[in-house]
């Protein structure tokens, strides 16, 4: 939520803290808050009056506006459709810095537009950096002194942004709520906004029909003598600071009160209402309404509508209807100030993809008693503008009361591990506007009406601790008594198996729990749909089911690395394993209908892959003291189908195994004995270069005393960080000499290497090898 620092200062006259101090105060005691920026008008922008309008001679959509500052007049070109003679508007002379659609500032110059010179321009809110609105010129209230700098009447403000947690949405989505919070933390006084006194509810206003919908409260007030003109600038400034667009003083006042008090209200144009009887009912399936944004919404019976004579005039708690909204000729209105069931509002806003400031507040729950304050506040502001009240209706069958909490103040110290005296507890609760009856050993504490989150003793403990400051609680060194048996058999077996596989040359991978159709296709597996668990909102259509085997994922990972693996035929190119769960439907699991089984699986790719797999699986069975002849009870080993792998251009065999790890554990003939480790050193990840590698071959002949390490070492030292790999792929003896052939991988971490770069370094390497090792290059 955006917070205006100026507005806070108005509500807290004794506030001395700077914006960044407020941000830190709230972050450490209430919720995360930061300073978001400034809201200010460039001092060069002036207030001017439009005295003449004529069409641009050479452009249909443009006008020439003659503006005056009271002394002299100039004519500017303007493309906005909403300007009229007599309006006060913002004018920027050449040299003023304004903002474009990306938020970048630009300086306006005197320009010629279609043959007419324009010395400056009239401005929209966006150009002044005040709001994204750019559909028209910002029309100013008519009481501003002509020819003055607009900044004189629009004080610069600092905007804070607070992440209000759901438990404080009831009271802190408003400046009054934030002010009260700061007041409690800093022991300040809040200056409450003035409220009007309302006449008694009368029958001169519409009755309400609700059926059996649960509406906690519905208040309506009738007004006449309304004028839909621009709001006073100070009110507009606060709306802009909250991120809202000003419209006219009637709509603005309801929005202003929402940002001030936290309770949304809605003003209907009385004369456009199709009748007398107010109602709230579920919409009918397919019922349509055009809302104030001029969009047509199709409703269902799960959505609530406000009705007049049963005709829908608003989407309850979310947005008013276009037909009954305030318009420039509105003179009388009906103010709705109500409280709606949070879940219904949440669901409708979600389904219609229409989340508004009002719906956001209702969806989190508001105190119905707040309606009293917000209605009287709107009334005060409207009355100040010259309006009159015609009648009041208040449907409030069951006034809401906060529960009385039986509270032992010593529990605070008990929870905290820090001694906090009952006096201090009481003081804090009172600062938070709680009523505290401490006459008995067990206190009776009632929170203020708007604190819907204070219901049980831990809620009060949280209040006391956060006001004191969580940093005041010391840190108690934990009592180091090691658990005698911290790891279950399963965890131990898993870690032992991991170590076994790593020692056998397998690298561990992790795959998603979703099956992946393309990977299934790669290994020629299919899911058993009759027992597959389907995700109704999958991350992609190919990942719609939970996996039933680990192999497709492991194989997919192997293929993903294909290009990076060595080019020579090794006995085992690469071996990968995974230990993880597979999922099927069934009755034997912990959760109804779901069976999760842990599997261990691996792939070994290379000439000796099959032997590698067989040997490793034997080792695994041995580890559990299970007989090797029992393999088929636990899973399978095999070779990936030749045609399948040749299709992926893998010329050497791919062997695999997959075992039911749960069954292995349950069949173990001995106990596991895994010793906890610290998980190895904190090796730092080095990202491989994103620039393309270039491969060059190098074949040399050397005398038999020369070792491969020597050759490699010289290549590395010469090539430095441009050599990414040296891969021996051939070796043979001939006439007393040894011939070696290498693939050299050139790659820079910083740039794409050019042919020249590579030629240069390749030659350098050759010359070093020739010189140092007497090598002959082939």
């Amino acid at each position, binding site marked *: 939520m955006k917070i205006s620092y100026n507005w806070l200062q108005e509500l807290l006259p004794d506030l001395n803290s700077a914006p960044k101090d407020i941000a830190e105060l709230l972050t450490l005691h209430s919720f995360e808050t930061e300073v978001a920026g400034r809201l200010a008008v460039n001092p060069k922008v002036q207030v001017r009056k439009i005295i003449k309008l004529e069409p641009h001679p050479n452009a249909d959509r443009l006008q020439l506006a003659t503006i005056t500052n009271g002394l002299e007049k100039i004519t500017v070109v303007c493309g906005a459709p909403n300007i009229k003679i007599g309006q006060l508007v913002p004018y920027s002379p050449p040299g003023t810095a304004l903002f474009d659609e990306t938020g970048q500032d630009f300086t306006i110059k005197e320009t010629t537009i279609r043959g007419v010179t324009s010395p400056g321009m009239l401005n929209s809110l966006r150009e002044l950096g005040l709001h994204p609105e750019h559909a028209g010129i910002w029309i100013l209230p008519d009481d501003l002194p002509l020819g003055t700098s607009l900044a004189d009447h629009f004080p610069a403000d600092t905007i804070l942004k607070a992440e209000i947690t759901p438990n404080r*949405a009831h009271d802190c989505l408003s400046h009054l709520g934030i002010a009260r919070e700061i007041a409690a933390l800093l022991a300040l006084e809040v200056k409450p906004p003035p409220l009007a006194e309302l006449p008694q509810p009368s029958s001169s206003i519409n009755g309400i029909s609700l059926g059996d919908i649960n509406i906690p409260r519905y208040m309506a007030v009738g007004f006449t003598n309304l004028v839909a003109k621009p709001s006073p600038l100070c009110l507009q400034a606060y709306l802009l600071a909250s991120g809202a667009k000003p419209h006219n003083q009637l709509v603005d006042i309801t929005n202003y009160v929402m940002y001030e008090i936290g309770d949304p209200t809605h003003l209907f144009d009385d004369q456009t209402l199709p009748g007398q009887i107010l109602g709230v009912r579920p919409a009918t399936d397919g019922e349509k309404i055009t809302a104030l944004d001029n969009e047509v919404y199709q409703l269902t019976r799960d959505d609530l509508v406000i009705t007049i004579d049963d005709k829908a005039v608003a989407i309850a708690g979310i947005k008013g209807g276009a037909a009954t909204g305030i318009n420039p000729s509105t003179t009388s209105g009906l103010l709705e100030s109500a409280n709606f069931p*949070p879940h219904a509002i949440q669901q409708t806003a979600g389904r219609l993809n229409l989340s508004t400031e009002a719906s956001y507040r209702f969806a989190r729950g508001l105190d119905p008693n707040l309606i009293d304050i917000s209605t009287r506040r709107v009334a005060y502001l409207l009355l100040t503008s010259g309006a009159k009240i015609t009648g009041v209706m208040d449907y409030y069958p069951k006034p809401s009361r906060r529960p009385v909490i039986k509270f032992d103040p010593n529990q605070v110290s008990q*929870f905290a*591990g*820090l001694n906090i005296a009952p006096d201090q507890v009481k003081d804090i609760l009172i600062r938070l506007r709680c009523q505290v009856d401490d006459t008995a050993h067990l206190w009776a504490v009632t929170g203020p009406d708007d604190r819907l989150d204070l219901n049980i003793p*831990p*809620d009060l*403990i949280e209040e006391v*601790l*956060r006001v004191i400051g969580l*940093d005041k*609680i*010391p*840190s*108690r060194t*934990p009592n180091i008594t*090691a658990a005698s*048996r*911290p790891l279950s058999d399963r965890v131990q077996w898993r*870690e*032992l198996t991991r*170590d076994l596989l*790593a*020692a056998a*040359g397998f*690298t*561990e*991978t992790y*795959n*998603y729990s979703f099956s992946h159709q393309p990977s299934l296709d790669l290994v020629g597996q299919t899911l058993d749909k009759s027992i597959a*668990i*389907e*995700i109704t*909102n999958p991350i992609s259509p190919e990942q719609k089911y*939970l996996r039933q085997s680990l192999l497709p994922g492991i194989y997919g990972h*192997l293929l*993903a690395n294909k290009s990076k*693996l060595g080019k020579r035929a090794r*006995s085992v190119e*690469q071996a*990968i394993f995974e230990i993880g769960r597979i*999922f099927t*439907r069934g009755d034997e699991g*912990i*959760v109804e*209908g*779901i069976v999760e089984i842990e599997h261990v699986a691996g792939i070994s790719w290379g000439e000796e892959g099959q032997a590698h797999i067989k040997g490793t699986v034997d080792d695994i069975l041995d580890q559990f003291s299970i007989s090797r002849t029992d393999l088929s009870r636990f899973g399978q080993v095999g070779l990936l189908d030749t045609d399948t792998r040749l299709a992926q251009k893998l010329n050497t065999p791919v062997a695999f195994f997959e075992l039911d790890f749960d069954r292995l554990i349950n069949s173990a003939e*001995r106990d596991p004995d895994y010793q*906890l480790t*610290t*998980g*190895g050193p904190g*090796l*730092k*990840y080095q990202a*491989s270069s994103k620039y393309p590698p270039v491969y060059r071959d190098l074949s040399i002949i050397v005398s038999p005393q020369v070792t*491969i390490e020597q050759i490699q070492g010289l290549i590395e030292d010469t090539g430095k960080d441009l050599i990414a*790999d*040296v*891969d021996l792929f051939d070796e043979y003896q001939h006439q007393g000499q040894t011939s070696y052939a290498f693939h050299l991988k050139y790659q820079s971490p910083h740039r794409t290497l050019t042919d020249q770069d590579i030629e240069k370094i390749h030659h350098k390497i050759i010359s070093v090898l020739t010189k140092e090792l007497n090598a002959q290059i082939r």
Partner: protein
Amino acid sequence: MTEPLTEKLQHLRTEAKHALDKAADQDSLEPWRVKYLGRKGQLARLIKDISQLDAPARKSAGQLANTIKQELTQAFTARAAVFRDHHSAPATALSGASLPPASSVGHLHPITLSIRRIQHIFARMGFIVAEGPLVEDPAYNFDLLNIPLHHPARAETDTFHTASGSVLRTHTSPVQLRAVLAMNLTPPFSVISPGRVFRSESTDASHEHTFHQLEAFMVGERVTVADFKGVVKKYFSDFFEQNVTTRLRPSYFPFVEPGFEVDMSCIICQQAGCSVCGRTGWLEMMGAGMVHPNVLKNMNIDHTRWQGFAFGGGIDRLAMLRHHIDDVRLFMSGRLDFLNQFS
């Protein structure tokens, strides 16, 4: 008379360890491994002989053999790591020593290693490890954790649903209930549960839909916020091998009250301000709080007698900070040039 099998095993262990200590470089490791730990190696041959023994002797010899096997395997892995540490280039960069051995040592996943590290730290503080299902009953993922159907916190979670009405667990908190109820735990107890969790989110460098969390909860007669602070401080300091400061801020989760967020001093810039900590000097590490009485009730624990804390934090995040990994998607990528770098 030939010496008993157990003695042969002990001798082999000593001999193997000596030989390993004498291994001069990475290239000597493979022959050692083949000789002692290979399928036709000396240990394997002795293990085969175990089946000749009678039942009681078989059990103890088998246990000894496996202890030795594990010891030697771990020693081997450690030694290989030492050689790699001394290697100036990244682990994967250079291959092609002498013509290829059957296999070189494989590598464990950095999340596996982080979880091992975490288990080690917490076991020393008296915590046991519990696990739970990945596909959960909504009651355990939400309702019994005090998140009823109409709660805004529930609407804000991006949950994967199954056609049968289950959910993929969005946090490890359900294991609090599962562990207590399945293991019949009564207070006082201290439990951690690391594991996979799911959120339906689009992935980017800091977001994954499948990631890992650590749940920890400790309940006793007087388990306090001060105890929580102590445990967390030890956790982070041990994990990162540095003295770190932590900061608690008020926050909100339905299953704890009071609720906190825990920040840790940025270990990348030592709080000077950097891109990792968003120039604030603090890293957000976990949500936490005192277990809500409704949750204790759902565990059949008397909340008037017992109290405690719980926290949930990301493990991927911890691993990223420890190993300077800048993209969370690497963990599930299967890229060997990544996976090969951590052990």
